[in-house]
């Protein structure tokens, strides 16, 4: 197990290095931040002076080496726009996004698993058809559409939730549903198909023959055996929630890293974009690791040695 973790750790570092490098190059290829920092009528000398101040006149590979050296100390540099350390700017926003992603995940899983299991219980029943229709909608509808529809219905007409912003628990509900909708749909669909597979297995027939209650068969014997694919898709969705947060945060004026990332890309604020992408990548790596560790726990046949 320890060796497994060590190997994974090394691989994760390589992934993080690769992602950081890609972002470094892409950001620098795509535009110049100095233009956005100065007034329209700034002279060429002004531009050169500021470019020098920011160290952007150094050759690209020198900038890259400096970037790597700082990265090792988790120093992403200073935001040229907000003029604060980039890492702390991102970390400041992280709780909002994590709160939203966690709520969305809990919402998605809490609904997806029962829906998936019950739909598989009676395939092609009214419940199954309805659930899968909704799931198809959840996967197909764009996030901003779902968000705006929720605002119009549950907030404006029904007057249950606030329209936007962060604050009380009520503020969290609509963004969490919006962000969680896609994950809910994919987890529910996968749970259903995995269950359908398992229900046909011999050991389920044996359990039935033993006269176990339907509830016990469904949840203890069938459901547990769908865990591997379901946990996998849950891991993928949990990672994707962070990326999906960009649109949800914009629709609901949620002050998280998604909006920060968008604004920083527009501003060509290299340091903040790099820190955001880095933290997102760390998040993905950690989830992957957690999923792998869970496999061993869920299915004793899987051994990491």
């Amino acid at each position, binding site marked *: 197990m320890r060796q497994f973790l060590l190997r994974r750790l090394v691989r994760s570092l390589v992934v993080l290095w690769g992602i950081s490098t890609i972002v470094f190059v892409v950001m620098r290829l795509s535009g110049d931040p100095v233009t956005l920092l100065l*007034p329209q009528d700034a002279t060429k000398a002004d531009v050169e002076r500021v470019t020098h101040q920011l160290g952007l006149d150094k050759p690209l590979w020198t900038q890259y080496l400096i970037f790597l050296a700082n990265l090792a100390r988790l120093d992403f540099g200073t935001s040229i726009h907000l003029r604060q350390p980039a890492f702390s700017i991102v970390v400041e926003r992280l709780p909002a996004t994590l709160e939203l992603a966690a709520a969305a995940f809990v919402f998605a899983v809490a609904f997806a698993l029962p829906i998936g299991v019950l739909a598989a219980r009676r395939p092609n029943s009214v419940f199954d058809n309805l659930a899968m229709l909704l799931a198809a909608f959840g996967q197909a509808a764009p996030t901003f559409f779902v968000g705006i529809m929720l*605002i119009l219905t549950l907030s404006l007409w029904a007057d249950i939730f606030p329209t936007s912003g962060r604050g009380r628990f009520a503020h969290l509900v609509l963004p969490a549903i919006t962000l969680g909708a896609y994950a809910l749909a994919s987890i529910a669909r996968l749970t259903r198909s995995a269950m359908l597979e398992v229900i046909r297995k011999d050991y389920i027939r044996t359990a039935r023959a033993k006269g176990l209650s339907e509830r016990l068969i469904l949840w203890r014997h069938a459901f547990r055996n769908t865990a591997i694919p379901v946990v996998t898709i849950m891991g993928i969705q949990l990672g994707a929630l962070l990326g999906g947060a960009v649109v949800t945060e914009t629709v609901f004026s949620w002050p998280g890293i998604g909006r920060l990332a968008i604004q920083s890309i527009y501003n060509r604020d290299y340091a903040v974009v790099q820190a955001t992408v880095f933290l997102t990548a760390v998040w993905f790596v950690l989830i992957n690791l957690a999923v792998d560790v869970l496999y061993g726990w869920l299915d004793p046949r899987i051994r990491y040695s």
Partner: protein
Amino acid sequence: MKTFARHHLWLVALALLLLPALCAAGAPAGKTELVVGTGGDVQRLDPHIATNVIDITVTFNIFDKLVQRGQDSKLQPALATEWKRLNDNTWQFKLRRGVKFHNGEPFNAETVKFSLGRTLPTGDPKIMTRGTFLAVDRIDVVDEYTINIVTKVPDPLIPDRLAFHGGTIIPKQYFEKVGAEQFNLKPVGTGPLKFVEWVKDDHVTLEANKEWWGGKIAFERVTFRPIPEAAARVSALLKGEADIITRLPPDDVDRLNKSPNVMAVGVPLAGLYVLATNYKRPFPMDNKYFHQALSLAIDRQTIVKNLWRGQGVVPNGVYPKGNWAHDPNLPPLEYSKEKAKALLKQIGYKGEEVIMESTIGFFANERQMSEAVVEMWREVGINAKLEIIEFSVRAQKNRERSFKGIWFSDPIDTLLDPDGMVWRLQGPGTAQDYLRVPEWDKLMDEARISLNHAKRKANYDAAHKIYLEYLPWIPVIQPIESYGVQRFLDWKPRPTQDFMIQDVKLR
């Protein structure tokens, strides 16, 4: 089993519905807090760097200027109580006595000299308002409450220039003590509102400055909330979570006006949405008749009616309504496909490609207008093509003057004078200097340093005729800037997009 499922789903759904979210609609009784929903978060609060429209919504209330504009756009005393011209090149300002910054620091001539000094051309290049006082040679402190502004050439517009962001007054001692970064995060001014907190992308909160020299304002607290998505912004207003929202999409104007609680208010923007052109590109972009053809081919009436739901005015030239040089007797810019085709034939246009570069929403309806205009051009036989670019690419092209042909620009008439718009952006060496017509330069330059109003008017009229012949900007629309407001508020927006808290009253 079936009942179990139904039971559980029902319970969870019920729990969701019963969540306590008591967001009652804003009631005027005892209302002490005003919430303004804006299109985005402020970027900066240092008033000499914070020049975008969202920033000034906040900073213009924290800080004062020496001179300010009233709701009628006329100049009024602010931190200066009176001013006069001592001679052609010297303006004298008497300062208001007894004014203190929010931290208690006294307001005096030294701090004025320091503040305006930041904006002079010799200042830090990152100061966005550095182009405000190009003619100013020096600022002299005469006594504690008197300053002289000495210019290199006569500048009739010094008081006007002082009335926008370049003229903002900041506290010298505080700024020097905390430095630029801290000042940007915790700004201190003399204005009607004091800074309380700024939680990025969430809100900026200000509270009433009880000692403000301008009197009492109607609210104890003012919160600015960024709500980037227009539908969410409108919903927040309808639900009473916001009292005023900015950037109301034209499509929502009618809808709001039908509501019993809220309404739309609008004012023609002090500025124009124009098609800027790169005259330095080869034929046909260097040809004035081609520019005339481009202008003739645009059906502006249709754009105003369909894309803007009537929330706009067809311009009659490059001086927008509200600019004193605007001539109401000129007809709106002409639309004639036949004349456009005839001009194209006359100059021997043979389908050379013309590229329009547009972002998605640098301002309202930009992309939609770009698509419409390109279609209109294609109808008269111009081989026009639309390319979508990104904001920072646009900024870079703007700086390098490397646009491929045509792009949308939104010049703002900061001084309500041709000097503050067309000369500021298209004069020699300025951001959009793509064409020099010596005769136009001469008329404009004379007008801007003349202290004779009649001569200025005559020059600007003559310059305008030349302008319409070349059309380095092809004006498309003077949009009406719309806002959503609760009906219990009495407020009219200003054409220069500056939101001033003293304008907002409870009915």
